């Protein structure tokens, strides 16, 4: 009869030990892996909410290869229709169809919000793995979630501190708080909905909230998403940007 408690103890240990063995760095690696994809194509709706209740809607179509190449085009509203962004590594270009002009977003422009929203161009160009620039520290854990604090001493990062709440089961970030120097919270990113695509779960509705301006947020709702798409070789070139 004593064998039963022993088996229960062994079972408990076998479940708990691997979980405890997960270090903060390992969780971030898993997160990077979960969020990374070789290639994808999507259409999405971006809602930019300004204080006072004004909502503006932007429908867009994008093609992405890893975290290095991306090409995005606005489909709506008419004012923005045809405006395209090209990302190649850490560089970002924007093409304005009405003026038929392209400019590289750099310097002070990188800090600006896309369409005045809460996602900056700097956020768009970020491509390296979090562990390359941050040190990870596990600061909290429950049965279902784990909280990691990322801290960077690299002066080039947009946010020296990032607190990430990860769903243990799906390895999806439930909530990220990006903070500036002095740990001052700047913005919060919340996953509102996820969707299963084959064998992977991916966030399809995300909200970025400003923690500096009251009642200001930007939401991304992915309407369609296809992973593992093969794009022609010249997809992510300036020629295609200005076509």
């Amino acid at each position, binding site marked *: 009869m004593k064998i039963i408690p022993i088996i229960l103890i062994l079972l408990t240990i076998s479940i708990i030990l691997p979980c405890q063995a997960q270090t903060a760095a390992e969780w971030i690696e898993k997160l990077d892996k979960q969020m990374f994809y070789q290639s994808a194509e999507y259409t999405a709706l971006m809602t*930019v909410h*300004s204080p006072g209740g004004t909502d*503006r809607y932007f429908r867009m179509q994008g093609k992405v290869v890893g975290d290095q190449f991306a090409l995005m085009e606005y489909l709506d509203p008419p*004012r923005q229709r045809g405006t395209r962004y090209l990302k190649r590594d850490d560089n970002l270009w*924007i093409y*304005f169809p*009405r*003026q*038929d*002009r392209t*400019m590289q977003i750099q*310097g*002070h*422009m990188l800090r*600006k*919000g*896309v*369409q*005045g*929203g809460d996602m900056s161009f700097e956020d768009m160009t970020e491509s390296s793995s979090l562990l390359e620039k941050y040190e990870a520290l596990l600061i909290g854990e429950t049965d279902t979630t784990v909280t990691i604090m990322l801290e960077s001493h690299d002066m080039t990062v947009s946010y020296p501190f990032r607190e990430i709440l990860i769903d243990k089961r799906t390895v999806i970030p439930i909530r990220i708080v990006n903070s500036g120097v002095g740990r001052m919270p700047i913005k919060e990113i919340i996953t509102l909905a996820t969707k299963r695509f084959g064998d992977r779960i991916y966030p399809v509705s995300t909200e970025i909230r400003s923690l500096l301006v009251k009642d200001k947020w930007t939401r991304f709702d992915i309407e369609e998403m296809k992973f593992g798409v093969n794009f022609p070789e010249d997809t992510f070139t300036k020629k295609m940007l200005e076509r």
Partner: protein
Amino acid sequence: MNLMRLSLRNARRHPRRMLLTGLAVGIAVAAVTFMDAYVKGFTESILETFVQLEAGHIKIVPLEAADRSRPLPLEKGIKQISEIVSIAKSTPGITDVSPRIRFPVLLERGSSSIPALGIALSPSREKRLMSIDELVTEGSAPSDSAWDVALGFKLAEKLGIGIGDELFMVTTDSYGGLGPGLYRVTGIIRTGVGYIDKKTFYVPLLAGQEQLYMDDMAMEVVCRVEDGLDGAKPVAERLNEDLKKAGRSDVVALPWQEQGTLYRMMATAKIVGPVIMLLLGLIALTTVVNTVLMSVMERTREIGMLRALGFERGTIVKLLLGESLVIGIAGTFFGLVLGLAVSLLLQHTGIDFSGAMENIEWPMKPILYPDPSVMTAVKAAIFGLILTLVAAWYPARKAVKLAPAEALRSN
């Protein structure tokens, strides 16, 4: 009459001393004449440029902007601007109304950026306000409906562009997004005002509104008043009442005197004139006092004799004051001639402050023209004469206080 002749004869007894004193009075009067003409020219120039390029006679701004020295962000601009324009147009006393948008932008040239200030306005509405046609020295002013731009000549030089070239810019629109604009250079502006020539460009209001995502919006509405500068205050009050009646309490009409700190600065500049006049007066006063005092001390016996002969104290005071007045009149005349000659010469050639003004963001032309007038001459003449009389008063009073017997005994 005899007393005057006697004063004149006494004044000529020491020609060198008279010359020195007269010169002191003359230089003070010349300096006062020039200073008055200079301050007048300075304030008129700055006011004219300020009203033309910045303020108009009246400016309607968002209520929030009234007490701010820094410009408001574009999203806080005036909405339903056409309504504001029609209210202003129907206010009695207002002849011209024009909305404007001022927006900062970094203009790209190769890998470097040049900070600039864009002003979107309607050139046809500005004919009697900014008169942009007059500012354009090469090419033509932008037209209301095209994507034209006229820019300061130094800015054009920095950007390496000229008439007919394209100017592409991306700025932050009223929603915080990117606002692109592709303009064709139609005009080069040369105002002489440092910051206009160096960093300002003008685009049509419609194009600016589209670029900045500001449909039926503007940052300010500039008005011209029929009665000119003096009529601005009462008309602004009337306009504010009309705006309130129409439910537009989100904006306020400010006459030019209440816009920014310039008016206060001009008031300060007006104080500088009298202060300098006072300082110069004090310097000249000490010289005249010294001369008359010496003259009195040398002539103590003579004064005693006059007293013994029956001259009254008042007569002796008048005699000494008369002597000073003779010197004062001569010095004042000399000072007026000198001061007016210098002022008139500089009124013609101007005083060039280009080097010093280059980096000063004032609506002020770098060449200042003193503006002498009849009043300038009258003020300086009164100053010179009063100065000499005041300076002579103390020595004259001191002289007559001596008893005749005591005065006769002195060496």
